[in-house]
């Protein structure tokens, strides 16, 4: 086993993520077949015509994986954006000002964090019904606390640094200090936070869709494809293998990237 250094991690990560991004673009602009079209007569095995075979309805698995990657990326991306955006606001405000506001918000934050995120998502989906948008909202809320924590501890560290003290002596307002002097210094923490968060979001989306609570059928998402293929695991295992491998590539790529950036 070769011990991978940061450079190889970066290169491998870029390659894997690149593959996923290309798949995602294909999912948006071009798929070899209509991913929803059913064909009772289709040969379900892997062939030149259907490079990943067909599922039980005779739908082309490759096309479905492409669109599934797109769906999963949209969900995971939006979830991380929601989490990072509100998490950063929350973390900065509480970390910078401290005091009773910090106490209250952070205890609330702890409460949400302590609550199992899947359960929280289930609750929201139970209230507002399933579907992609509710899923994004539900997971997004569940992702806020972890970002808030990372950002808050970083802001706590930065605000006691000498340069902030001197800016304050120059008479800069709170807003200016936060936006101009603190936020830019959060980018390293946030970046690796987003990459890790993205991974968790991909898995969460797959998990929720697998439980039948995410993207509505017949639309493909990687988790939903896994869930549908499960019943055919003994008769047509390839329908489960390909979406599974795609999830692995996706996660591995982003993990390697975040590793590489953390060190660098």
């Amino acid at each position: 086993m070769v011990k991978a250094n940061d450079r190889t991690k970066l290169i491998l990560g870029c390659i894997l993520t690149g593959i996923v991004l290309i798949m995602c673009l294909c999912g948006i602009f071009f798929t070899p077949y209509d991913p929803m079209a059913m064909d009772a007569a289709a040969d379900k095995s892997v062939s030149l015509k259907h490079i990943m075979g067909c599922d039980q309805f005779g739908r082309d698995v490759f096309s479905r994986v492409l669109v599934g990657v797109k769906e999963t990326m949209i969900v995971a991306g939006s979830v991380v954006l929601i989490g990072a955006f509100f998490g950063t606001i929350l973390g900065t405000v509480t970390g910078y000002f401290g005091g009773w506001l910090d106490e209250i918000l952070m205890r609330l934050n702890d409460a949400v964090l302590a609550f199992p995120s899947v359960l929280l998502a289930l609750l929201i989906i139970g209230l507002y019904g399933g579907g992609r948008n509710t899923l994004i909202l539900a997971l997004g809320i569940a992702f806020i606390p972890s970002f808030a924590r990372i950002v808050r501890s970083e802001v706590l560290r930065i605000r006691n640094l000498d340069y902030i003290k001197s800016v304050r002596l120059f008479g800069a307002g709170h807003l200016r200090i936060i936006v101009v002097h603190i936020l830019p210094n959060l980018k390293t923490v946030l970046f690796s936070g987003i990459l890790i968060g993205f991974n968790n979001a991909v898995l969460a989306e797959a998990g929720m869709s697998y439980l039948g609570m995410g993207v509505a059928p017949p639309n493909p998402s990687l988790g939903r494809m896994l869930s549908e293929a499960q019943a055919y695991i003994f008769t047509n295992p390839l329908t489960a293998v390909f979406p599974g491998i795609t999830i692995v590539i996706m996660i591995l790529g982003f993990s390697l990237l975040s590793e590489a950036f953390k060190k660098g």
Partner: protein
Amino acid sequence: MKAFKRLLALTLMSATLTVAFCGCGSDKADASSITIGIPQDLEDSLDPHVAVAAGTKEILFNIFEGLVKPDKNGDLYPAVADSYEISTDGLTYTFHMRKGVKFHDGNPVTAEDILYCISKNADTESGSAYVSAFSNIEDYYAEGENIVIKLKQKDTDFLQYMTMAIIPKSNPNPDTNPIGTGPYKFTYRSPQENIVLTRFDDYWGEKAHIKEVTLKICASADSIVMYLLGGSIDLFARITTTQMEQLKDSNFDILEGTMNLVQAMYLNNNFEPFKDERVRQALCYAIDRDEILKLSFNGKGTVLGSSMFPAFGKYYIDETKDVYKPDLEKAKALLKEAGYENSLSFAITVPSNYQPHIDTAQVIVEQLKKIGVKAEIKLVEWDTWVSDTYVGRNFEATVVGVDASQMTARAMLERFVSDSGKNFINYSNPEYDETFKKAVSTTDDAEATKLYKDCEWILTNTAANVYIQDLAEFVAINNKYTGYEFYPIYVMDIAKIRLK
């Protein structure tokens, strides 16, 4: 385990003793046992007059019986009563009580118990399923060993309701301690674990074959195959085609029957586009039911054309399924005529715990695309489906299966009368109401059958719903056992199962 061994030893011993005493070597008296997997615990009441869940009722069928009892053809035969007479005007029913019928606690069945059961179920407060049929009772009383029931109006289906379970008046808590007269008696239940039934050796009729029955709760559908192959259950009713495939080369026999329900895309007739009969017919022409069976069910299942399935025998009309042959041109033309050319879109609500319905809906969405109809699937939890879709009638279309609580055409068709509480599709057709009313009140059986059939034709011709199929049902049974019988109602007759 130790307790189990002791129990086994005891049963073995008593079995040998019974054999020794009666001096016969019949296999009925052996110490056999079977473990049957059931999908859910019997969480609602164990009182047969109160229980509503189909899964509970199918088990209670073995513990209780009525004055009459259905057989595997759906015909009724006398049980607690040993015969009955119906007066020529059809208004007076006289049941002769069978001698020597005992409850599981050893007490004999008395006329008082039977009268108690009738009064309990006629009580409008009880919430019993029999209330509406029993409101027709003018008077009932005991005459020596006979029970006489007088009706206000003739009701050809009334005998069906005499399958009502007979329970002892003296039982203070029928909810948790069910006592009946059936071939099996309730022994104990450990919640979310199992329920144990033991053969009732004082049963009046042909005694059950298997001595001890354990009903094991297998809540996760994914583990059923594992349980079967691992030997922890011997029988599971209603497995899916995929599970069936996995059991192919094992020591299990797979029996094929039908689920006895009408799977359809039920249409809310109050949803603006579906108010137009032509739109509903267009959907019927667009949906290819054979293709649904082929894609989602390995080609198994019985295509249906109306709200009736084959097990109903004389009421079932096979020809209804040929009314709407797949015809995309006709479907498009009908949509155009109704003003919905390429502009119809609606949501299909599907309960998320029923994969067969989800799979059906997926195929429907694809088929409807071909006539320019945009349908999308909305998955909801089962509880939400019951409260919002069924009770609240807040939906556009839904794919589910609907069954009958009694083996009567009335139970199946009453649902579509305009003012019926169960009319969740808001079907409203004066002609139908009229025909149904005539059918219920008519005195001649042949005439009633014809009128019920007319009702089915009306449903088909007006395309009340997009009827799809009666799903195939597969039962996996360890090949040590035999004798499983399919019933036209949702029950499992354990008493007929025996060792090979």
